């Protein structure tokens, strides 16, 4: 697989983001094994230190479990934890800007919420 990395963020951070996106999207499920450092290094042509660093950060955030001698697994509760922090971030960073814009455009909140339910299903 060939992956494009952007120059402005360290690769280990981009790799961490990739794993997080896969957990959020359900591609990686809780309890799923992650590929080994060697395998990721080989497939993505990265040095193993970079890969270890990404995994280490995910482990520090309790998103993955390291099981000694066996490998790494997506931690129980990882997706919930990520969703919670993503929601928190949305409300803190994105929502105030969005709200400002809605008000500036004079949009009716009721109209915006048409066809919308709390858990994302179509009404």
């Amino acid at each position, binding site marked *: 697989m060939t992956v494009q990395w952007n120059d402005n963020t360290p690769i280990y951070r981009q790799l961490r983001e990739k794993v997080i996106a896969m957990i959020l999207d359900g591609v990686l499920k809780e309890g799923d094994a992650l590929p080994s450092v060697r395998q990721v290094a080989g497939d993505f*042509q*990265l040095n193993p230190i970079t890969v270890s660093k990404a995994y280490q950060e995910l482990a520090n955030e309790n998103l993955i479990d390291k099981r000694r001698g066996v490998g790494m697994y997506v931690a129980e509760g990882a997706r919930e934890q990520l969703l919670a922090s993503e929601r928190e971030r949305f409300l803190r960073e994105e929502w105030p800007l969005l709200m400002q814009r809605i008000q500036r455009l004079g949009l009716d909140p009721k109209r915006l919420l048409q066809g919308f339910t709390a858990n994302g299903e179509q009404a």
Partner: protein
Amino acid sequence: MNAPANMTVRARGLSKRFPNKVALDHADFDIPTGRIVGLIGPNGAGKTTALKAILGLTQFDGQLDVLGFDPRTQRDQLMEQVCFIADVAILPRWIRVREVIDFVAGVHPRFDRAKCERFIANTQLKPAMRVREMSKGMIVQLHLALVMAIDARLLVLDEPTLGLDILYRKQFYQRLLEDYFDENKTILVTTHQVEEIEHILTDVMFIRDGKIVLNSEMENLADRYTEVMLSADRLDAARALNPVDERALPFGKVVMLFDGVERGHLESFGETRTPGLADLFVATMKGTYA
């Protein structure tokens, strides 16, 4: 001179003079264990001479410690711990795969025949195949299978993927990363294909006219170097910050490269980005062939 235990190579004042050329000019560098180090420089900069000195294949002045050995006087002990893939094919054209394996098994005490045969089984190579029937890519696969089956502490690669197509090149590094490298091994590689290996390297050294002109962990390059895209009215102000390089783009824009100037400060001049290894290489080597 004895290097600390976690150093695979330590060079101090490493020099080599040919009658008409100085190939190495008081080069100082350390290569710690467990790293993948790129030695990068233009043609004739001294890359191959440095590798030859490390391997004990050439005389030199100055001090050099490789895995605790002096390559000038302890070459035999050193050779048990070091592997080398040269950019020139050195296998005789008549030899067969199984004969090469027999040969290496006979001469190298740290060669693991079963491991080598496993690596070979994953390629298109067959035991009865002769070197003259192989493509350049297959010869490199054979070399790689042989050296990866040797439990060496230092692997030296001189332009290992030169002349290979992209599939073989990619496979070459994939095998090294998946089946060979670990924190007790060290890889030293020279190449011109900078973009291809920049994320594989943990450290990089640029060599120019026999001198080491850049020696850094890859991780630290992003902190040190910043490129800024400037419009014409900001050029003089930006030049006052001593850019290490400057190049013009179409539509009157100029890109300047800064070393050690705080990025936050540079952002006030224009769009910033972290230069790739190839950008740094071009900037550092400007005028080499002039």
